[in-house]
């Protein structure tokens, strides 16, 4: 394989169309879902320059941020519309570019009193990468969706960075399962009285009450899975199984720790075998 071949990601136009459709629809659903969750319990309600201004006037006002905040519901509608246009196939690069730009206004990017919101960030970065892709070609049977390499690398970074920090900042607690148990019980305490879901069934409490050996297995398993993800994903033979287990893990996190991992779900698409590149073409 030559040097340029390794950087390219050439697949047939038919597969590129299917990928574009699947990606657009999943991303549109993820945006709607993330927006619903975020407005219910999370940071958009906190924006000190938005609806909360009368209460948080000590923070100070910024008219630019106020306007962005007011634009949120319209931005979500525009992003979803642009993604539907991309799914249909009308000027997909432009449609992804529009979705990418307006996605920046969908969520309040600040977190209460500290930090920034990050769960949706990969999804937004991914849209920008999609806007760079040539989705179709008039002349050739194949198209080079080269930014898929970067979408995959971003996906891997999210997990590996998280795994490394778990080991670095609370290594023994995570590997021994104590951290997982704590987070499960914390979520139970923080959400159970308002969120009608698995919390009210005591699912977290049940998980945290599992025998110590199982908790060690689960807590340590999360860290090991995150750290070894590149190996599991880049070795094709084990990729499908690894993806399934990983999806199971983030879905479980969603229901037990109440973190909307929507920004991650969409990136799974780029690892599916159905959309893998045609190896023969790259050689």
């Amino acid at each position, binding site marked *: 394989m030559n*040097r*340029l071949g390794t*950087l390219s990601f050439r697949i047939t136009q038919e597969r590129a169309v299917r990928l574009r459709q699947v990606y657009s629809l999943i991303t549109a659903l993820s945006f709607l879902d993330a927006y619903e969750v975020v407005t*219910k*319990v999370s*940071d958009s*309600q*906190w924006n000190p320059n938005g*609806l*909360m201004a*009368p*209460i*948080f006037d*000590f923070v100070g006002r910024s008219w630019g941020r106020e306007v962005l905040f007011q634009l949120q519901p319209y931005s979500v509608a525009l992003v979803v519309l642009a993604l539907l246009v991309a799914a249909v196939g009308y000027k997909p690069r432009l449609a992804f570019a529009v979705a990418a730009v307006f996605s920046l206004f969908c969520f309040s*990017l600040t*977190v*209460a*009193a*500290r*930090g*920034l919101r*990050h*769960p949706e*960030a990969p999804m937004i*970065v991914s849209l920008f*990468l999609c806007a760079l892709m040539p989705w179709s070609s008039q002349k050739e049977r194949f198209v080079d969706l*080269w*930014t898929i*390499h*970067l979408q995959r*690398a*971003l996906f891997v*970074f*999210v997990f590996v*960075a*998280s795994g*490394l*920090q*778990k080991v*670095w*900042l*609370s290594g023994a*607690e*995570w590997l021994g399962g104590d*951290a997982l148990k*704590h*987070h499960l*019980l*914390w979520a*139970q*305490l*923080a*959400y159970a*009285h*308002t*969120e009608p879901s698995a919390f009210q069934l005591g699912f977290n*409490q049940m998980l*945290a009450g599992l025998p110590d050996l199982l908790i060690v297995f689960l807590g340590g398993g999360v860290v090991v899975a995150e750290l070894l993800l590149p190996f599991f994903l880049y070795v094709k033979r084990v990729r499908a199984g690894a993806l399934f287990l990983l999806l199971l893990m983030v879905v479980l996190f969603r229901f037990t*720790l109440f*973190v909307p991992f929507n920004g991650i779900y969409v990136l799974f698409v780029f690892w599916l075998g159905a959309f893998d590149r045609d190896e023969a073409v790259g050689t």
Partner: protein
Amino acid sequence: MKLRFVIVVVVLFVPLLVCFVMDREYWPYSHFPLFVRPPEPFQWVRIIGVRPDGKEELVTNDSYVSPYGLVRLAFTIDNLVREGREQDARQVMAKLAERTRRRRKMGLSNLSLYKALRVYRIQYAPGPRPYSDQHFTKKALISEEEL
């Protein structure tokens, strides 16, 4: 092709690595520090309603802290207290209570269950049992507002 690829890699991944090394987030670049901090000692904010007979109970109705949700408010107060901004936290609760009183007067919703709202920051006792408001090592009153 190669140059384009390299440019995007640099724009995308260098800031991600900077975030990782500096342990800070510069949106949209993040090092995704979800649940990575050590858990102990665990403290959390509880918003408690005081009934007319003086009995305390956990507030479960978002209307008392409208337009907030109880969960979001707990996060916010906790973050403010962590940063040593207890005065700001009290100010938030005072303004919310004022809104609640006004809404009650206007008859917008039935908010007569409690005569006051108290905000505690509780340090929970470590141990194998689930965290419970009855098992704590420290309980600090952050604010109390008449309704």
